[in-house]
């Protein structure tokens, strides 16, 4: 056994260290994986890995020996690398998604280890890389553009890339509707599955790679059983995964000539098999199943079996998966994850018996302590079920969250790394999950026992698990929480055990079972009845007795209802009905309704940050728990809870997916600020500055900005810099302005911060004036466009600040020339000097011209300089004009002007209201107008228009007054 000793080299320290267990920041935890698709090149010389993070995605090439990055294929942010495969030592086949379509591409490895990517001329996809035939692939080529039907070719790789199919071997087959192919190396056959919609059946067929007619192997009728072809064992025998004639899904032979099932190849006594694999020589390689919530593989090939044994001995807790190996089997890629491990890749050197940690799936989670779960065996009446208990460390609210899974039929609770569980465990909550009857993976009988057991056996199973856990652990509080069926189950548990559950969180739930059968003209009725009955059971009159809507008065615990208006799995109507009856009866109910989150699938991670934060806040308030003392929390954990409250505030503030309530937003920003959340302080500063959600108070605003800046929040520095620069509320102080603007850039080198400092350098007094720096910083074209959002806002900001620089820059002619040159280049002006002609000033409105379908035209309502605010009418005030450039007007000439509006309000305070750059042809109609609305301050308005050479070409004054009705 000595030779089995494994040398373990951990190049990275991994996820777990001695960090204190404390709340994990949702914005760190709930994100997309950064590394994936790690693969070895055929010889094992290289490793490729996909990397994706904000604004950057790439396929990285590493040297296996040194683990050093050799080169990267940068993938544009509009594209997505779906998958890739090494074809040989120098070529990688890539599937790249662009505008909803998958496109084939080839990556050619150059001698300098760079990779050149080339898209295939033809559309289609790789069926198989034909390992036994070097440089040849089996490629399915689209018959025509956008058609989902294909011709099959055995073709040289380079010819396929170039679209030269003339000399390729076409595999003739007679079906027009085949859209997927599996190549069987053993028999050199192509397998496919065709779905017959009319008869609701799936037909498994094959054709020889030499061509010919498709031969039907088997037809699976809708109510039958699982039949998944794995591999041909010989010309007449197919290995299939099936539960025909057995309780569990097992691996079995199938005689394709006589259409008969043969001997069982492998079965697990307790679990369904989820997959099986064969080697090219027809030898069984492995089978997979889920045991205690973790994917387990049983290997039948000697080398892999030995490796599996070795790994299991070395890493008692972890589950390793073989992710790939070199052709000579000398090098392996291994992957491991578990309930407290988000996933990491290793490289195994067979000859040296050396295993090295290579990449973390979530590098940003490195050093965070996660919470392992315990797999429990729960005894129920006459069987045993699996459950998983995750316990917190510190903080510990002594609260058990019972979390039934969705489905409920055929869904299996896993014990792999679960971000939601980690979120709640790190915040001090224990979480119990149960694989109740009806869950998948445990055989047909176990699954079918759950059908129609809504509110009955399923909840009894969960309660058995709760009781067993409570016999071993003590909890002061217990709440139920779940999504989809889990939402229903959470409510039913609290209804059935009113003394045990202190609160309920039901998300995207089903609360009215009869409603499932009459939700719409297309999603219910006879055609869908069978489908529903496989889950809910036969329709019966007693459905109301197990529907929370109709037994609402049996619910005693306060409830948080979460739903989305566009959910078409558990329609919003379920939740709305439940809320209606609960509200009517005066039951304590809180709600969190999204507009567009479907069946709980948020489009952005921020949706999950928000949802979980709302749940956390609900739990804390409802159970009267205390959030951990901020002085006892680490900075990261303080920020974690602060960010929770800030996320809730964001939901109320921005109104992008929930109802807007800026006063509530401010109250949650205040909660976050109590935890020293820098962004919350900034947003409070903003709210008090603008009087949104709080009474306008500039003193408070500046205080919040300063606090935010002291906590290192760049936008706060930038805003303070602006206020000092412009003398906005703060006394103008160029030194302080520079200090703050530079501090902002030091923290965040963003385009926006650069343009703001650029403005400073153009407008500052001589001791700070620096035109070169100004132009350098304002030139957004030189900024990093990958930060596109910020770049766009910086560009907009440039439009706002350049008019101020044009109007106010107090510099010498030579220096101003530099600014002029920059403005001319940036706005592509061909004429600088101009005069205004055909001026119209006053109040205008848009006159739609529907009859000839022309765009709306602006028409004069009044030429008076006094403008009345009249909420009922859509009006604009300002000027309309044409420009008369100096010299001869040429077609294509482009004139650029700078304009700014000032308001002197009734208290005599004068301030810049708006500034903008204008550009257009001399033949165009130019408008500088503002919409008259209640939000515009009344007072004296002054409009100035400048040419780029600092000449004031026009000024106009208006008086804005309230209408007297």
């Amino acid at each position, binding site marked *: 056994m000595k030779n089995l000793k494994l040398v373990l080299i951990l190049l990275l320290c991994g996820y777990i260290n001695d960090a204190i267990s404390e709340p994990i920041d949702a914005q760190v935890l709930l994100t997309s994986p950064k590394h994936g698709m790690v693969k070895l090149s055929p010889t094992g010389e290289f490793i490729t890995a996909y990397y994706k993070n904000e604004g950057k995605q790439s396929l990285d090439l590493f040297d296996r020996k040194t683990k050093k990055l050799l080169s990267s294929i940068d993938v544009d942010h509009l594209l997505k690398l779906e998958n890739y495969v090494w074809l040989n030592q120098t070529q990688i086949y890539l599937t790249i998604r662009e505008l909803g379509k998958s496109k084939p591409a080839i990556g050619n490895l150059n001698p300098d280890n760079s990779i050149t990517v080339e898209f295939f001329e033809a559309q289609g996809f790789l069926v198989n890389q034909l390992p036994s035939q070097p440089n040849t692939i089996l490629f399915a080529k689209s018959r025509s553009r956008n058609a989902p039907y294909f011709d099959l070719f055995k073709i040289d790789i380079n010819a396929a890339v170039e679209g030269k199919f003339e000399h390729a071997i076409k595999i003739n087959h007679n079906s027009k509707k085949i859209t997927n192919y599996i190549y069987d190396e053993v028999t050199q056959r192509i397998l496919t599955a065709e779905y017959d919609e009319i008869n609701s059946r799936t037909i498994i067929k094959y054709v020889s790679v030499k061509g010919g007619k498709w031969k039907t192997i088997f037809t699976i009728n809708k109510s039958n059983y699982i039949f998944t072809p794995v591999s041909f064992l010989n010309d007449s025998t197919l290995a299939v995964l099936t539960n025909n004639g057995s309780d569990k899904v097992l691996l079995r032979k199938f005689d394709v000539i006589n259409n008969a099932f043969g001997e069982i190849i492998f079965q697990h006594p307790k679990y369904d098999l989820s997959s099986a694999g064969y080697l090219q020589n027809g030898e069984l390689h492995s089978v997979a199943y889920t045991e205690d919530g973790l994917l387990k593989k049983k290997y039948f090939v000697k080398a892999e079996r030995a490796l599996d044994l070795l790994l299991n001995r070395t890493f008692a807790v972890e589950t390793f998966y073989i992710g790939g190996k070199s052709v000579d089997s000398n090098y392996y890629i291994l992957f491991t994850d578990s309930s407290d491990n988000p996933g990491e890749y290793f490289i195994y050197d067979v000859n040296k018996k050396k295993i090295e940690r290579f990449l973390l799936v979530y590098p940003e989670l490195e050093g965070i302590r996660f919470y392992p779960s315990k797999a429990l065996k729960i005894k129920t009446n006459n069987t045993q079920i699996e459950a998983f208990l995750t316990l917190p460390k510190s903080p510990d609210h002594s609260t058990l969250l019972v979390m039934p899974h969705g489905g409920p039929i055929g869904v299996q609770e896993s014990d792999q790394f679960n971000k939601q569980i980690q979120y709640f465990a790190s915040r001090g909550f224990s979480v119990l999950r149960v694989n109740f009857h009806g869950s998948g993976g445990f055989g047909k009988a176990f699954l079918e026992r759950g059908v129609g057991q809504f509110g009955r056996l399923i909840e009894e199973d969960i309660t058995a698990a709760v009781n067993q856990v409570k016999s071993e652990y003590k909890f002061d509080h217990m709440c139920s929480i779940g999504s989809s069926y889990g939402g229903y189950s959470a409510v039913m548990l609290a209804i059935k055990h009113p003394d045990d559950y202190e609160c309920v969180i039901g998300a995207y739930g089903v609360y009215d079972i009869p409603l499932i059968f009459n*939700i719409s003209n297309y999603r219910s009725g006879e055609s869908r009845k069978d489908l529903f009955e496989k889950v809910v059971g036969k329709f019966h009159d007693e459905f109301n007795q197990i529907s929370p809507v109709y037994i609402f008065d049996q619910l005693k615990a306060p409830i948080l209802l979460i739903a989305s208006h566009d959910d078409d799995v558990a329609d919003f109507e379920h939740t709305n009905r439940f809320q209606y009856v609960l509200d009517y009866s005066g039951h304590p109910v809180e709600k969190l309704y999204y507009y567009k989150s479907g069946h709980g699938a948020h489009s952005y991670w921020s949706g999950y940050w928000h949802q979980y934060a709302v749940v956390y806040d609900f739990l804390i308030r409802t159970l009267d728990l205390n959030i951990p003392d901020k002085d006892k929390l680490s900075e990261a954990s303080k920020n974690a809870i602060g960010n929770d409250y800030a996320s809730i505030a964001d939901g109320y503030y921005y109104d992008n997916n929930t109802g807007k309530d800026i006063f509530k937003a401010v109250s949650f920003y205040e909660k976050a600020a109590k935890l020293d959340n820098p962004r919350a302080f900034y947003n409070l500063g903003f709210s008090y500055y603008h009087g949104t959600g709080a009474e306008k108070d500039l003193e408070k605003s500046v205080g919040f900005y300063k606090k935010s800046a002291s906590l290192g929040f760049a936008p706060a520095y930038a805003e303070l810099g602006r206020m000092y620069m412009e003398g906005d509320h703060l006394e103008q102080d160029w030194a302080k302005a520079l200090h703050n603007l530079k501090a902002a850039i030091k923290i965040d080198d963003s385009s926006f911060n650069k343009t703001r400092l650029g403005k400073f350098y153009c407008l500052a007094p001589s001791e700070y004036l620096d035109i070169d720096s100004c132009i350098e910083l304002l030139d957004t074209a030189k900024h990093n466009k990958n930060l596109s959002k910020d770049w766009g806002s910086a560009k907009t900001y440039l439009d706002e600040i350049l008019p101020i620089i044009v109007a106010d820059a107090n510099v010498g002619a030579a220096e101003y020339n530099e600014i002029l040159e920059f403005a001319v280049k940036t706005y592509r002006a061909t004429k600088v000097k101009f005069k205004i002609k055909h001026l119209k000033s006053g109040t205008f409105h848009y006159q739609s011209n529907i009859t000839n379908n022309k765009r709306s035209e602006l028409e004069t309502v009044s030429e008076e300089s006094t403008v009345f605010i009249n909420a009922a009418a859509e009006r604009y005030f300002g000027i309309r004009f044409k420009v008369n450039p100096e010299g001869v007007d040429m077609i294509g000439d482009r004139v650029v002007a700078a304009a700014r509006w000032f308001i002197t309000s009734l208290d005599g305070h004068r301030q810049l209201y708006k500034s903008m750059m204008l550009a257009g042809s001399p033949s165009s109609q130019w408008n500088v107008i503002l919409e008259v609305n209640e939000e515009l301050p009344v007072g004296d308005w002054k409009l100035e228009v400048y040419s780029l050479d600092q000449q004031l070409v026009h000024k106009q004054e208006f008086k804005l007054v309230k209408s007297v009705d």
Partner: protein
Amino acid sequence: MRYIRFIVLLLVLSSIAAEVNSATKVKPLTDSEQKLLGDNKGLLLIGLETSRDLKSIHLSGPKNIILTSEHIKSGSQYLLVDLKVGIYTIKKIRLDNVRYLKFKDTENWNFSIKPGVINYVGHFELVQIGFFASSGAAVELVNRSSEALQFLQLEYPSTLKRNRIKYAGPGEDDFFDFLYRKKMIAE
């Protein structure tokens, strides 16, 4: 995101004259309009959730009806009209002067108007897909009874007091009757 449940191709009228019928145009009621329904009339309540403005909804039944309203704008709204009792079918939706949807699967678009009650037939949901010649629409009649009830309580309280609301959409639904039994709808 709500997935596309049923897509119909938008048809284009060859000419306005091609649309020949003798349908009656009806106007939505206001809450203050006291309609005497009697034995042969009931109220139709239909919710509309559309991604674009609609020109008209065409019903066939005891009398052919065109629900036309300047209020059928994109977004969410309701139409409440009085109709003669009987079985009706939503036959056609006119999007504008030239494009329309015609439903051949009439069994999916039937509803019954019962006398003396508000017959809520569901929410007609339409999402236009594509533009011009290649355009189609995802359509469905969805049971959103509780929302319809809340709408009536807010906008038509008098009408709701005078007339019981009944579900008349796809399938059978006991929800309104349950609320009446529990006295959760004021009568």
